[in-house]
C-alpha cells in the first residue's frame, strides 16, 4: 500500500531552512533617509550587545547599510544607543 504524500509525517518542519529571499527594506519601502534620532528604529539593525548587524543578516543594500551604520554611530555618540551592553532586546 503506497503512502500518499499528504500522509507522510515529517519529524521536522520541512519549511524550516528553506531560505526566503532577503530584500533591502529601505529600497522596498522607499525610505531615503535613516534618522539617527530614532533609536527604536535603529534597534532593528543591532544585536543584543548593541553591535551593528551585518548585511548578510539584515539584507540591506550597501548604500543603506552605510547610512544605517552612520546613523547607529551618531545615536551612540548622543547616548541614544549604548556602545556595548547585554540584553538590549
Amino acid at each position, binding site marked *: 500500500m503506497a503512502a500518499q504524500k499528504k500522509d507522510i509525517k515529517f519529524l521536522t518542519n520541512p519549511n524550516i531552512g528553506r531560505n526566503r529571499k532577503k530584500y533591502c527594506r529601505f529600497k522596498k519601502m522607499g525610505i531615503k533617509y535613516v534618522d539617527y534620532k530614532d533609536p527604536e528604529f535603529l534597534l532593528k539593525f543591532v544585536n543584543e550587545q548593541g553591535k551593528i548587524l551585518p548585511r548578510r543578516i539584515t539584507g540591506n543594500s550597501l548604500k543603506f547599510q552605510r547610512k544605517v551604520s552612520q546613523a547607529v554611530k551618531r545615536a551612540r555618540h548622543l*547616548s541614544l544607543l549604548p556602545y556595548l551592553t547585554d540584553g538590549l532586546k
Partner: protein
Amino acid sequence: MLKQYETVVILSPLLSEDELKSTITGYTKWLKKKKAELVHQENWGLKQLAYPIENKHSGYFLVLEYKADNSIVSELEVEFVRDNDRVLRFLTVLLDKYALQYNDNKRAGLVGKNRKSSIKKADAPTASAE
C-alpha cells in the same frame, strides 16, 4: 554658502529650570546674532541616557535646526565647549536633501513617532511623492 545644519545638544540635568531656559535662549539668540536662520527648535526634555556621561544618567535634549554659513558651526561648537559645565554632549550634522524632506515630513506628522493616528493615510502620499 548657506547650508542647513542640525545640532543636538545634551544639557546637564542638574540645571534649574531658569538656567535651562536661559541657556536655550542664549543659543537661539547667539544664532540670531550671527545671522543664522533658525528653522526649527525642539526640546525633548529630560531623557534617560543609554550610558552615563560625566557620571550623569539623564540629560535635557535640545535639537536646533538652522540655515547658516559653514563657519558658524565651529564657532557654535566653541560656545558649547566654553559652557562645558552645562553641556554634556553635542553633535552637528549637515542635512542633505533627503534629510530635509524627512524633517519636513516629520513636522507635518507623516513619519516618526507622532504618526500613529494617520498611519494608513500617511503611507499613500509619501509613496506617491517619491
